[in-house]
């Protein structure tokens, strides 16, 4: 749990239907200052709808959302920086005036925004491109511009949806550094991504949404500990994928990582291996599951 006691964002049992489609049925979580919180789920799980309810773009049909201690007001909106998944900037406008305009909509003075922007542009290698139209920038540059638009007005709450999309490894590292800096500055950060290794690297706590419901919620370490035993690592030869209770297998450098279905324990796998012909095991150990394994296990379980 975070250092602060009062959550910046509290989502309690929210629901949202679009006609017959139940986009979100029961999602709850709290996010605290100074943490990077992972909002995870497969495509269509209800993540974006949940974010939109938090931002008052959609009104929930049930449940409640509390931002900075109450309902989201116009003043509170200025304290939020949001990088949506479906992102875009005015393509036929120049970069610098566009970013200044977006910052002024968040309450910044234009002169202050221009001054602050210079540092961001230089840091993200966009300073030389500030007079170019946005459509003339590469996809990665546009992504960095979008990150600046999210952070320029120094928001207290930062919500980023797939922040590393389109970035090369160097810029991905830079974006991670920036997000981590914001966390250290006490900002409340929600990150939604399908890149599980980024979640493991950055997030302290996560919520996993599936079919519009919260299916996992808590500290990353606790969740991994609870799922320990749901994966084994082994070295050897043979057809490991056909073993009963194995959800997924990943092989690298002769090491095979087997994600196990809920209800299957490593002892069952060990006994099956011992009785199978054509399989040779050189090393067998219980693996700490990655978030990726947990994600796959929970989502596949949800489909049954």
């Amino acid at each position, binding site marked *: 749990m975070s250092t602060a006691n009062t959550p910046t964002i509290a989502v309690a049992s929210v629901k949202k239907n679009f006609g017959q489609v139940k986009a979100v049925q029961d999602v709850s979580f709290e996010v605290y200052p100074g943490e990077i919180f992972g909002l995870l789920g497969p495509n269509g799980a209800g993540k974006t709808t949940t974010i939109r309810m938090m931002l008052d773009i959609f009104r929930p049909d049930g449940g409640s959302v509390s931002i900075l201690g109450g309902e989201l007001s*116009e003043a509170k909106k*200025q304290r939020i920086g949001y990088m949506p998944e*479906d992102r875009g900037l005015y393509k036929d*406008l120049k970069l610098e005036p566009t970013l200044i*305009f*977006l910052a002024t909509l*968040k309450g910044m003075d234009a002169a202050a925004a221009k001054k602050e922007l210079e540092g961001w542009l230089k840091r993200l290698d966009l300073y030389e491109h500030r007079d170019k139209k946005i459509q003339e920038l590469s996809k990665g540059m546009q992504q960095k511009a979008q990150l600046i638009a999210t952070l320029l007005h120094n928001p207290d709450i930062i919500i980023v949806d797939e922040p590393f999309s389109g970035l090369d490894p160097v810029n991905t590292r830079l974006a991670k550094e920036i997000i981590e800096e914001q966390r250290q500055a006490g900002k409340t950060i929600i990150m939604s991504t399908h890149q599980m290794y980024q979640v493991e690297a950055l997030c302290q706590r996560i919520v996993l949404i599936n079919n519009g419901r919260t299916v996992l919620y808590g500290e990353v370490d606790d969740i991994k500990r609870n799922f320990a035993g749901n994966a084994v690592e082994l070295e050897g030869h043979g057809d490991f994928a056909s073993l009963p209770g194995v959800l997924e297998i990943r092989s690298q450098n002769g090491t095979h990582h087997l994600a196990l279905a809920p209800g299957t324990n490593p002892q069952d796998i060990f006994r099956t291996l011992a009785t199978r012909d054509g399989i040779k095991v050189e090393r067998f150990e219980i693996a700490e599951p990655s978030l990726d394994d947990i994600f796959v296990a929970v989502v596949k379980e949800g489909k049954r």
Partner: protein
Amino acid sequence: MRNFWLLAKHEYRKMIGKRSFLLGTLGIPFLIIVVMGLLIFVITRGEDKRPIGYVDHAGILNETVRPPEGVNDDMVPMHAFSDETAAQSALEAGDIQAYYILAADYLQTRELERYYWQEDIEDAARVDFADFIRANLAAAHSDDLQTLLIDGPELTVRSLEGNREISSNNPFGFIIPFAAAFLFVFIVMGSAGYLLQVVTDEKENRTMEMMVTSVTPLQLIGGKALGLMAVSLTQLFIWLAVAVVAVLIGANYVPQLQDFTIPWTSLLIIALYFFPAYALIAGMMTAIGGAVTELQQGQQIAGILNMLFIFPFFFVALIIATPDSPILVALTLFPTTSFITVSMRWAINVIPTWQLVASWLILVATAVLSVYASAKIFRVGMLRYGQSLNLRGVWSAMRSR
């Protein structure tokens, strides 16, 4: 509220910085200047200022007689010849542009013969000679009576209940309100059409989701609508300023332009209807933009809706012939047609006060409803990328919280 003005300012700056705006805005004044220049050129340089000759067998003309001051001051000189041979020689030498022969019984027959070399004289020269004859025939009377006899009577129609009047000597009293009505309609339709494009662009650019975390949907649309209206008004004022300057300069050469007066009452009526009419159509265009996914789809629906606004143009003949016809009263009261109908009826008639008040109130109420409903539809439809709202969705959006 700050963001509302920021959005309006941003939209305004964005639009007036575009090359298409500069071309559109400066193109019309350029056209006005060219037309006025051509008009002045034709009137001044193109006009044949050589004298007109005449042979007066009736003995009624004196070549020194001129109409009273203020009546045809630019008349070409008249030159009397003693006989046809002398006149013919002068014509062949190019000293005169034509000559007339008045027979001895002219006062009984009122018939003239005109002789010209290769090309007949212009209408203005014929009018000059007709005025010259009238001035001679009326020379014995006072200047006022001469003016009346030469110019003919001036018919002025005044309303019983106001100070509106239309003079037969000032056709602009009729033309200007009509032209102003067309111009304002053009502005309203143009701005609203552009609003549709802006809304669908926002959706297609995917900027909407980020924008609505900073501003409310109503601020977003209201700010853009205001900015676009300001762009159109800027364009209009530039055109009008150039037109007024052109008229002032042209009045020195074109006598008809000297009677030009600004039709303030018509402009006031048009302005009263302009803003609610704009809000009504802007609301409709926003709702369409929010509900559809592509500009082309929106334009097809908007094209049908536009018919509801321009419908009164089909009744121009009826407006001129019978401005108080029941059909026109109905069109005056119907919200989408009231703006154009009132503008055109007012140009030639006095509309009863009850009709003006009722139609304006109906228009304002409909405009408020349109803006309210459009904000609801826009809020629901704005993030439905690639998915249009059907009629049931629109109805559901309008009833949503």
